[in-house]
């Protein structure tokens, strides 16, 4: 009986959805509302309205700021879930994947990585800070930071990595993106306008623009560094989980 009800409900919903698909405008048609109204508006007024010459940053941080805030919260929740299930890393137990395969990273690899990691992090910071005007931004820069730390961990092992990035340093940074976003959002409420409004009323144009600039910068930096550190923490937790299943020193 319950199965019959479930099947009937699913069929009903399916019929409604298929009917709704028939009502939708044709895919890729140049007369669709998003092509007529939204995209030209973003392209023409993005810079003055959203305060970022890179239209993608304007869309991510301003037009769709709520969406981005949700994404940041989702990444943070992913870390919370991983930590809740796998627990934090325990460097004493861990061996990196290279140790497991029986091959330690050679001197050449370690020297190259020691030379490359600062360059990669420098590039990531450039991408984070320059996301407003050129392609890039917090998410991309954060991914690069995470990748560079993963590279370092593969070559030098988890104990060395966790000594360089201890837990007491990572825990405050992990929530930094959400906190930065909320702080920027509530600034608008303090000034008496909507949540996540960047242009504050009652100020001179120059002051308002400067404050908007600073708020976007803080959010980008928050997303970048918090994202990178969250990827790192997830990887640290997963390394230990991987290695616990392997028998030590078995060929």
């Amino acid at each position, binding site marked *: 009986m319950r199965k019959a009800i479930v099947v009937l409900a699913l069929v009903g919903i399916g019929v409604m959805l298929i009917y709704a698909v028939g009502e939708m405008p044709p895919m890729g048609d140049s007369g669709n509302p998003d092509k007529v109204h939204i995209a030209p508006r973003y392209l023409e007024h993005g810079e003055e309205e959203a305060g970022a010459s890179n239209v993608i940053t304007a869309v991510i941080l301003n037009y769709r700021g709520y969406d981005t805030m949700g994404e940041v919260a989702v990444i943070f929740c992913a870390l919370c879930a991983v930590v809740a299930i796998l627990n934090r890393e325990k460097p004493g137990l861990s061996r990196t994947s*290279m140790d497991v*395969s*029986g*091959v330690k*990273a*050679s001197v*050449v*690899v370690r020297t*190259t990585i020691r*030379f*490359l990691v600062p*360059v990669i992090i420098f590039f990531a910071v450039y991408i984070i800070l320059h996301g407003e005007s050129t392609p890039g931004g917090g998410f991309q820069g954060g991914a690069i930071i995470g990748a560079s730390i993963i590279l370092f961990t593969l070559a030098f092992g988890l104990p060395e990595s966790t000594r360089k990035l201890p837990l007491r340093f990572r825990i405050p940074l992990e929530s930094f993106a959400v906190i930065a976003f909320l702080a920027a959002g509530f600034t608008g409420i303090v000034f008496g306008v909507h949540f996540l409004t960047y242009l504050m009323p009652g100020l001179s144009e120059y002051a308002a623009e400067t404050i908007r600039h600073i708020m976007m910068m803080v959010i980008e930096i928050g997303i970048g560094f918090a994202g990178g550190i969250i990827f790192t923490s997830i990887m640290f937790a997963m390394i230990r989980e991987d290695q616990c299943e392997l028998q030590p020193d078995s*060929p």
Partner: protein
Amino acid sequence: MGSVAKDVLTVIFGLTGVLFFIGGTVGLLRCPDLYSRLHPATKCDTVGSCSITIALALQIGLDIALFKIMVVILLLLVTSASSGHAIGRSAFKTGVMPWHKKGVVPWPLKGEDRWTGR
């Protein structure tokens, strides 16, 4: 340096790069095992890309882009050579056998443990 000499050098460097890329691709497709494939693959990245970027640098002349190209060349040289080294070394250490004819024992013949590296 006249512009004709610059163009000639550009063509020479560009053609060298293209030649190395063709060789690298053919080698990657035709060579029998990991070690011999690694050889043309890394040549492509180092000599091929570096020659092409040098040709680009010659055409750009003195500019801020020249500095960026130098950084690109440096990164290409360092990363592709060392990643090739890492792949080859870990393959050797984990016991990937090199290609050999049936019945012919390949070069280091000190028994199986030579290939496991443990």
